[in-house]
């Protein structure tokens, strides 16, 4: 009896931020003069109405899982890696470059495209890492500045060297040759290989942070870099490594967006997943085992909210409001609980 009640309490507590966020967006929708229930209904329908839509939810899970897996590593080292977005872009750029440069059959091209994504993202991540460790530039500003630079670089390439022969448009480069298409399920955009890679990544990060020496070292650096250094951890090298590994996973996400989802390079190839992954990390309490749950929830909103524009003429940014407000109320309710829970106990 008692045990079931306390687990019920736990579930309520975990869902409390979601309820408050729904109330908050309810108000925002009323301000915008829209019917809140119709909006929620459309988001859910947009994500679940057909098997194809459900597959799209899984498609959205892939970049979010990869970016969150990477972000968990830098987060463990105490770094607020806001540059994941740009690392994702860098992966997509490296992959596109490789596909343009190497006319190989798919069994050669696809593995190499993945490697290019990993390397491109890792290098872009390292750039922020070098600025942070050797230049004393806070990783928030280094990462963010590099995000804008990467986005501008993408636009330059799409409207310059990589533009389609019959003129550049906002829809991106010409489609890649078929040899560079990551195979997908029939009638869907879901690539099983991509999904497996993403799940493997989050699994690997779970093991890394839980049970390996390097994971413990990163956590020690995150908790207290000075103390970790005195105990013999090379903070500079480990931070750089964390940036590189996170960048590699984000770069893989960007690469797969290009080869499995869009099959070309588009201007918004990163689609905000890098920023969203930071919210995922917060909401999961930076615990890898909770990341898939939050990622699924976020992906449902991500896939469902464009329907608001079609059916209700509302801006799809409502989805972002929901995601961010859940994170905000998660932080606030956790704080309230810590503060007023302490007094009781």
């Amino acid at each position: 009896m008692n045990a079931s009640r306390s687990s019920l309490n736990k579930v309520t507590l975990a869902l409390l931020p979601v309820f408050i966020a729904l109330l908050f967006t309810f108000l925002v929708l009323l301000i915008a003069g829209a019917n809140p229930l119709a909006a929620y209904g459309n988001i859910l329908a947009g994500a679940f109405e057909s098997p194809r839509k459900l597959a799209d939810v899984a498609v959205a899970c892939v970049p979010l899982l990869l970016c969150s897996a990477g972000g968990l590593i830098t987060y463990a080292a105490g770094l607020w890696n806001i540059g994941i977005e740009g690392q994702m872009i860098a992966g997509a750029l490296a992959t596109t470059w490789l596909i343009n440069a190497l006319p190989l059959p798919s069994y050669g091209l696809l593995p190499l495209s993945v490697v290019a994504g990993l390397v491109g993202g890792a290098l872009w991540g390292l750039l922020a890492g070098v600025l942070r460790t050797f230049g004393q530039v806070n990783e928030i500003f280094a990462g963010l500045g590099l995000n804008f630079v990467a986005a501008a670089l993408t636009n330059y390439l799409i409207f310059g060297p990589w533009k389609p022969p019959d003129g550049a448009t906002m829809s991106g480069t010409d489609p890649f040759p078929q040899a560079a298409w990551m195979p997908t399920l029939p009638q869907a955009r879901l690539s099983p290989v991509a999904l497996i890679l993403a799940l493997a990544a989050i699994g690997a990060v779970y093991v890394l942070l839980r049970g390996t020496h390097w994971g413990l070292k990163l956590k020690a650096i995150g908790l207290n870099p000075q103390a970790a250094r005195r105990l013999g951890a090379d903070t500079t090298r480990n931070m750089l490594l964390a940036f590189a590994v996170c960048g590699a996973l984000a770069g893989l996400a960007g690469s797969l967006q290009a080869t499995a989802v869009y099959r070309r390079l588009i201007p918004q190839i990163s689609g905000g997943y890098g920023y969203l992954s930071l919210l995922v990390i917060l909401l999961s309490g930076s615990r890898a085992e909770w990341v898939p749950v939050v990622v699924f929830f976020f992906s449902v909103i991500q896939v469902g909210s464009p329907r608001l524009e079609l059916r209700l003429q509302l801006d799809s940014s409502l989805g972002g409001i929901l995601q961010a407000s859940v994170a905000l109320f998660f932080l606030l309710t956790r704080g309230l609980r810590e503060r007023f829970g302490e007094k009781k106990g």
Partner: protein
Amino acid sequence: MTDSLAMVTIGAVIAASAPLVFASIGETLTERAGVVNLSLDGTILLTAMTGFAVAFSSGSLALGFLAAMAVGAVVAFIVAYGSIALGQNQTALGFVLTLLCADMSSFIGNPYVRKPGPSVPHMPIPGLVSIPFLGPVLFNQDAVVYLSYLVIIVSWLWVSRTQPGLRLRGVGERPEAAHARGVAVQRTRYLYTVLGGALVGLAGATYSLSVKLGWSHGHTTGIGWIALAIVIFGGWHPLRVAFGAYLFGALKSLGSLMQPAFPDVPTQVFQAAPFALMILALLLVSGDFTERLLFYLPPRGRRLFNALLRGTPPAALGKPFRPD
């Protein structure tokens, strides 16, 4: 009376920099109290939208500005309450609010996109405007730009020359000592976070009602991050921060002036330049290698460089204070 091209250009830079001045000085006050409000990029978007939407619907510019300042203050209050009272991470709170405010500006502002609306009227100050050079540059502007001068001067005098300013600095540098002397540390932090947020809101409304008229999705994206970087570049000193804001404004308009002259340079270079510049500027003011470079300067040059470009953050910046 015809103004020379140079005067017109400088005048335009001063006007275009007004929102950056408001936002970066506002954040300077907040950070001097030891709090980082990282939400600036989102807050400026949301308040630019609010200012325009309220002025558009009510027909009152004043209401537009007040609403924007109120929204900026509320967002800042959430950062303050969440971190001071609830002990949550300031960076996380600020970042979440950045995304939340940006999306709210898109969603609520949707009906106002590209609508022609009210703007702050041009208002040369009689008398002052006929001072040679300075008149046309400084006093041939609108009321909001005059307010930006006032904000610079008052914030500088406030921080460096007054009793409350001394307490503010104490709270940001050594909160324990300030507390021991009877300064209400937490209340001071709330006060300057909310005040700074109101100034950030003023910056947003200044964009949509005076500098970059109207509203569109992502109207001011990126500016909040630039403002946050300018605070560091300016070494948390109001005058130097204002100098940083004007310098950035000048470089930006120099860029757009140069763009037609270099048709071969891709436009994306000009899009990326502010952010590359931001990283370089931070590297210059905080990187270790600058120390090594300084070594080669003559002592007088070194002192000048230190006074202009080096700054240390308030010692308790971002650190929670728990009186026991």
